[in-house]
């Protein structure tokens, strides 16, 4: 969190859908305000999504041909060739890609878990506990989102080096353990999903604050937590500036390794774009997989609630 570009707020669409009380769908009949989409709207949306997906499709196309000569013809290739597996193998042979993937998994996985735990703990405090200075402190959390902490990168590098963390994965993990966006978001989730009576009931049963957190708050906000985890994972996985500075190139993250595929006087585009495919796949897969879980979580909540 300290070094990534200003944290964008996670999951707009889903975030809204996760919250209760927000109308998820508008009735189809009656005085509904929503227009029915006509063929023009569909055509425009198809064009937009084609543009969204094309660079990835293009990567697969180029990555599945044998060498740059595929790009030298009079027309660009638009259909995948038969060399994808071969190029993917080259990615893993030619560079420290396995290690970089492993590093990225450790960093992104750890920060995802810690962000969920620490953000929901703070969110619980801000939403349900009374303590002096609560509201000013909450305002502080919100304001920090706008602070361009990336500009402090030089002292951050010095600090991390002084702490003996340079070149270690903890140099990436520790500054990103918890973020303002996460805290704010979990506070919102706790407030909307955990009724005071539930918290009170836990207290009547003699549960302490930590047990209440673990047994009442955590299960109650798990849908939001999953989305937060997903976005934290993605930010860590995709981060480039700080890993470039805090890790030596031979022990980098997947983004560093990816860039090494392109460096040099001669760029082998089939290799480079095969690297792009490898680096994007885990995130795309995670989002596709977790998206289902989130939908079912929302539906389960709607049935019970």
């Amino acid at each position, binding site marked *: *969190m300290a070094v990534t570009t200003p944290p*964008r707020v996670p999951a*707009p*669409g889903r*975030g*809204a859908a996760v919250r209760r009380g927000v109308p998820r769908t508008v009735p189809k009949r009656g*005085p509904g*305000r*929503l227009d029915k*989409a006509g063929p023009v709207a*569909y055509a*425009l949306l198809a064009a*937009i*999504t084609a543009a969204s997906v094309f*660079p*990835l499709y293009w*990567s697969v196309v180029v990555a599945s041909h044998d060498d740059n000569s595929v790009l*030298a013809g009079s027309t*660009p290739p638009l259909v995948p060739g038969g060399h994808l597996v071969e190029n993917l193998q080259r990615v893993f042979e030619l560079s420290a890609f396995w290690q970089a993937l492993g590093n990225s998994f450790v960093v992104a996985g750890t920060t995802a878990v810690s962000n969920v735990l*620490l*953000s929901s*703990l703070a969110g619980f405090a*801000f939403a*349900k*506990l*009374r*303590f*002096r200075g609560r509201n000013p402190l909450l305002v502080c*959390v919100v304001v920090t*989102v*706008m602070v*361009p*902490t*990336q500009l*402090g990168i*030089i*002292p951050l*590098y010095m*600090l991390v080096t002084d702490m003996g963390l340079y070149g270690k994965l903890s140099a990436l993990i*520790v500054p990103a353990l*918890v973020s303002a*966006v996460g*805290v704010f978001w979990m506070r*919102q989730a706790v*407030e909307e999903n955990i009724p*005071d009576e539930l918290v*009170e009931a836990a*207290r*009547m049963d003699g549960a302490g*604050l930590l047990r209440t957190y673990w047994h009442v708050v955590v299960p109650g906000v798990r849908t939001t937590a999953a989305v937060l985890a997903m976005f934290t994972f993605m930010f860590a*996985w*995709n981060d*480039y*500036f700080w890993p470039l500075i805090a890790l030596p190139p031979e022990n980098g993250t997947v983004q560093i390794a*990816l860039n090494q595929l*392109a460096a040099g006087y001669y760029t082998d585009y089939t290799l480079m*774009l095969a690297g792009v495919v490898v680096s*994007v796949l885990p*995130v795309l897969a995670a989002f596709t997989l977790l998206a289902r879980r989130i*939908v079912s979580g929302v539906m389960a909540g709607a049935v019970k609630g």
Partner: protein
Amino acid sequence: MALQAASTTTDPPARATTPRRFRGERHLLPYLFIAPFFLVFGVFGLYPLLQTFWVSLHDWDRLAGAGEWVGLENFGRLLEDSDFYTATFNTLSIFVLSTAPQLLAALGVAWLLDRHLRAQSVWRALVLVPQYVSVVAVALVFSQLFGRDFGIVNWVLEGTGLIGDPVDWTADTWSSHLAISFMVMWRWTGYNALIYLAAMQAVPRDQYESAQIDGAGRLLTFRKVTLPAIRPTIVFTVVISTIGGLQLFAEPFLFDQQGNAEGGAEHQFQTLTLMLYKYGFINNDAGYASAVSWVLFLVIAVVAAVNFLLARRSERG
């Protein structure tokens, strides 16, 4: 989205809603619960930012450590450095070229999505896809697409007769700015569209009904009902895009694959963040780089404030 709700409507829960039983425990535990965030932000976010100013007042080698105090000399040097003016111009130019069309396009996409669609969730998921792709991957793919010899962009432009000879996109100011802005736009338009969509869906339905009764058409309804209603969200996205858009690093850094942070032979696409990286981590002149940092900080603060005021003012107009 969630945040924006906060910045506009910070309504602290009423005291009465806090469960009574917890009041006794307020001494320490709540502070312990929120401490990790403040600790992490303070140590790894705020302290380095402030320390940057201290470093900028010294002749400070990144590897050798602090040298002598030079006061504002680094800032003076900066004002005499023509690269600094080039980088400031590039930063602002790329920011405007990428942000303005991006937010307008996002509004359009949101408007398209804000209607009854078959497979609604699939459309939403698809426009968000670019957001999952890392800046490095985006920069690599687009530097290929905008390649002089093998790039599909040149191929399309030549095929349609718009250009005679292939464009060397990295070579000139405007062509490089356009290509870099395109990367930013591609990555962020869908994301902002979903923010706008969420805001649009929160607009009370009766406002649309009365517009319909008044016989307003689709475009007029959009201008008179939707836009005013989602204006706080627009202000929010403008400010956040400003903060991010002025700090671009990976896109220009990876655009020409030289790895030297020069931003082209004549610095035609060197942004301030690239300059910060060059002096801080290639030349190891941490003092000078920190001066760049603080000037960039000021630029961000001023532009964000101006944009905020402009966006707010248009509310009344």
